[in-house]
């Protein structure tokens, strides 16, 4: 079966500790089921992507949606958990194992952390107090010295995405977009990354329905889905952290879809920190190595640019509920490709791409990365 995206749904994103984690999921699932034009009984399997759960969240969600007994499992691949769950659904439909799969991505970060994620104590670098913004900052500082990336170029990514997010009614940050100067004068988190270059702590869920071809208006073709785990971040290589895992997944996805980077009209990529979007776009082949920082200032990746990147506002504006991020990215690309993104709608929207990269394990070039390419049939 050729896998198709049937429907998407999401909760709002933001600090929502007063909501039950199941409520975030039920909101997303109800929207996705209606969007796909199915009934709950059509769902053959449920795959959940979540980092911090809580353990058993999938079953507690089941209590409200009444699908007991269908095959169900939860995957954890750091920030790529939601898209890893989606990838498994795509492969299951492609191979004929299931006809209709509900993908759910969720995390409720506000009940766990009041600021940056506390590094994992069992990790060699986590135990040495390397926070995730620090890991990204180490890559950013390398780019500053190796390629002459400027603070203004880094800040331009935040300005672009936070401006995009103003038009996203579900985004966490919707007040006003900062200027370059405001981004740079916000407090230093890990040099050179300032506070406004870091995604906010967020709660949220997203649901995606994947099935086979059925000829329904609005269904989107899943041209490619590639998932790779992290590999040794070999110190003999000059790659900054994360680059190689994204490049591996991208290479597979382009090959599957038989497409080149310039054919992608619109994309949602993993901008947990400004440098993340820059390195990722290089790994995706949108810019040559060392030139990714020029994309936001030049307008190439603006909403009205040649290749809009993160029209939703990205993680920097929408927020980053780890497992809920991949499904949020897929939802945005679905809305964009269907021409239903409202004030955020981009002009060219036939082919879209989602990239999610999760990491944090010391010595690895990422924990996992998923790249998927979708198109309007």
């Amino acid at each position, binding site marked *: 079966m050729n896998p198709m995206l049937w429907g998407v749904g999401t909760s709002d994103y933001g600090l929502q500790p007063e909501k039950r984690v199941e409520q975030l999921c039920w909101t997303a699932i109800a929207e996705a089921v209606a969007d796909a034009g199915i009934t709950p009984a059509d769902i053959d399997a449920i795959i959940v992507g979540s980092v*911090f759960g809580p353990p058993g969240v999938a079953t507690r969600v089941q209590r409200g949606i009444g699908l007991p007994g269908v095959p169900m499992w939860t995957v954890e691949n750091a920030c790529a958990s939601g898209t890893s769950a989606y990838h498994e659904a795509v492969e299951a439909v492609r191979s004929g194992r299931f006809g209709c799969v509900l993908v759910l991505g969720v995390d409720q970060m506000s009940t766990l952390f009041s*600021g940056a994620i506390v590094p994992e104590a*069992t990790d*060699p670098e986590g135990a*040495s*107090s390397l926070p995730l913004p620090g890991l990204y900052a180490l890559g*950013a500082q390398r780019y500053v010295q190796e390629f002459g990336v400027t603070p203004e170029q880094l800040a331009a990514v935040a300005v672009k995405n936070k401006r995009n997010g103003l038009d996203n009614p579900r985004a966490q940050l919707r007040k006003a977009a900062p200027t370059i100067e405001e981004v740079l004068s916000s407090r230093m988190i*890990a040099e050179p990354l300032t506070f406004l270059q870091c995604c906010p702590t967020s709660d949220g869920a997203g649901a995606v329905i994947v099935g086979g071809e059925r000829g329904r208006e609005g269904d989107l073709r899943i041209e490619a889905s590639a998932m790779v785990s992290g590999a040794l971040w070999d110190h003999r290589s000059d790659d900054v952290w994360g680059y190689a895992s994204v490049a591996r997944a991208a290479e597979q996805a382009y090959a599957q879809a038989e497409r080149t980077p310039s054919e992608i009209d619109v994309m949602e990529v993993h901008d947990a920190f400004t440098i993340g979007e820059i390195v990722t776009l290089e790994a995706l082949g949108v810019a040559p190595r060392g030139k990714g920082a020029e994309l936001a200032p030049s307008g190439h990746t603006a909403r009205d640019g040649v290749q809009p990147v993160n029209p939703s506002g990205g993680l920097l504006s929408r927020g980053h509920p780890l497992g809920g991020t991949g499904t949020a990215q897929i939802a945005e690309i679905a809305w964009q490709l269907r021409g239903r993104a409202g004030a955020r709608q981009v002009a060219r929207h036939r082919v879209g791409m989602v990239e999610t990269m999760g990491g944090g394990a010391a*010595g690895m070039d990422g924990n996992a990365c998923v790249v998927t390419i979708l198109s309007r049939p």
Partner: protein
Amino acid sequence: MALGEGRPTKRRPGSAVGGLPVADSRPVFDGDAVVGVRCTVCRYPVAQNGIPWCPSCYGTVEPARFATTGAAWTSTVVGIPVGERRPPFGLAYLDLDDGPRVLVHLVEPAILRTGERLRITGTDAGDLVAEVTA
């Protein structure tokens, strides 16, 4: 009580932030050298102990002692508290001479030049600490 206060979770933060202790996975410095393993086939150096084979070529590994000197690959100064660390604190990836890349805390928080020479001077609460050498 504010929302979220006093609600136990299954999160494992480690003893540095009030959780239960976990086994230490950090690179070991024994006073003279960083202790790890090296591949007997491709000579790939690793600052982790107890691994079953070379993660680069699957060859047999043997115990190795690595130099305490090397070159900075990149660095940052962290401006937020993390665990028991209070800002500002400096971190760098240090490529040990003929050895692995290790994360070190800097005696003086600073942004270093790529390739700047560093030397591990000891440990602080189990973290490797390095200083710039002339």
